[in-house]
C-alpha cells in the first residue's frame, strides 16, 4: 500500500518521461495489496477467537474482529510518514528503488517464516515482481540522467 500511494503521488511532479512507469507500477502495487489482503482474509476467515489468540492475533481481534486492518507485523497502524515525496526526481526514484528492495527483503523473511507452501508460492511471485520494479526504477534513473546530460549539450 505504501508503494502504491508513494508512486501514484510522486507521478504528478516526476518528469514526463517516467510518469507512465510510476503510474503503471503504482497500479500494480494496488493489485499486490489485494493479493496480500486476500491471503490474510483466507487464512483468518474461519478462525475462532481462541485460534486468533493462539496465533498472536488476539489484540487484532479485540480491535477489529474478523476484519482486516492496515497495520504492520507489530500492530503499528499505517501512517503517511512511511512514504516520501520530495518533488526531486532523483530523490523520489531512489526512495522508490529502496522501497522495492525493502519489500523484496520483507517477502523473503515472510517466505522463511511460513511453512504454508501455497502462501510461499504467492510470496515468491510478489518477491519477483519487486525485483522487476526495482530494475525498471533503476532504468528510469538512467533515462533521467541521460535526459539531463543531453540538455547541457544542446
Amino acid at each position, binding site marked *: 500500500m505504501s508503494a502504491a500511494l508513494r508512486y501514484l503521488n510522486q507521478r504528478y511532479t516526476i518528469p514526463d518521461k517516467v510518469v507512465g*512507469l510510476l503510474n503503471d507500477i503504482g497500479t500494480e502495487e494496488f493489485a499486490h495489496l489485494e493479493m496480500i489482503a486476500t491471503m490474510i482474509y483466507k487464512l483468518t476467515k474461519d478462525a475462532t477467537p481462541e485460534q486468533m489468540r493462539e496465533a498472536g492475533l488476539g489484540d487484532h481481534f479485540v480491535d477489529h474482529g474478523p476484519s482486516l486492518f492496515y497495520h504492520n507485523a507489530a500492530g503499528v497502524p499505517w501512517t503517511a510518514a512511511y512514504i516520501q515525496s520530495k518533488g526531486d526526481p532523483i530523490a523520489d526514484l531512489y526512495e522508490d528503488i529502496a522501497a522495492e528492495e525493502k519489500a523484496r527483503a520483507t517477502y523473503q523473511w515472510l517466505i522463511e517464516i511460513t511453512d504454508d507452501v501455497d502462501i510461499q508460492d504467492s510470496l515468491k511471485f510478489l518477491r519477483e515482481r519487486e525485483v*522487476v520494479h526495482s530494475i525498471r526504477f533503476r532504468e528510469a534513473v538512467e533515462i533521467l540522467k541521460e535526459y539531463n546530460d543531453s540538455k547541457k549539450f544542446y
Partner: protein
Amino acid sequence: MVNPIANDAYYQSLQQLQSIDFALVELNLYLDTHPEDNQAIQQFNELRAQRDTMAKAFEGQFGPLMNYGSTTSSQLWNRGPWPWQV
C-alpha cells in the same frame, strides 16, 4: 459460501486470462522504459488483441470483469466471486 458461477470452466478461463494479463503487465512496464522497442510493441498488441477476445468470451459467460465490463444478463450483475473469493 460456494458461488455457483465459480465452476471448473470458470477457473480454467480465469487462469488463461491471468496468464495473458501477466505477460501484458510485464510488457507494459518494459515498454515504459524501452518505448523504442518495436518488437515489444508488436508483441504487446498481439497479446492485447488475444486478451480482448478472451475477456469478451469470459464476460459473456461469467459476468463483467471490471466496473465498465460488458455483461449479457442482469443475472450476472453484482455477482461474485470477487477476487478474494476465488
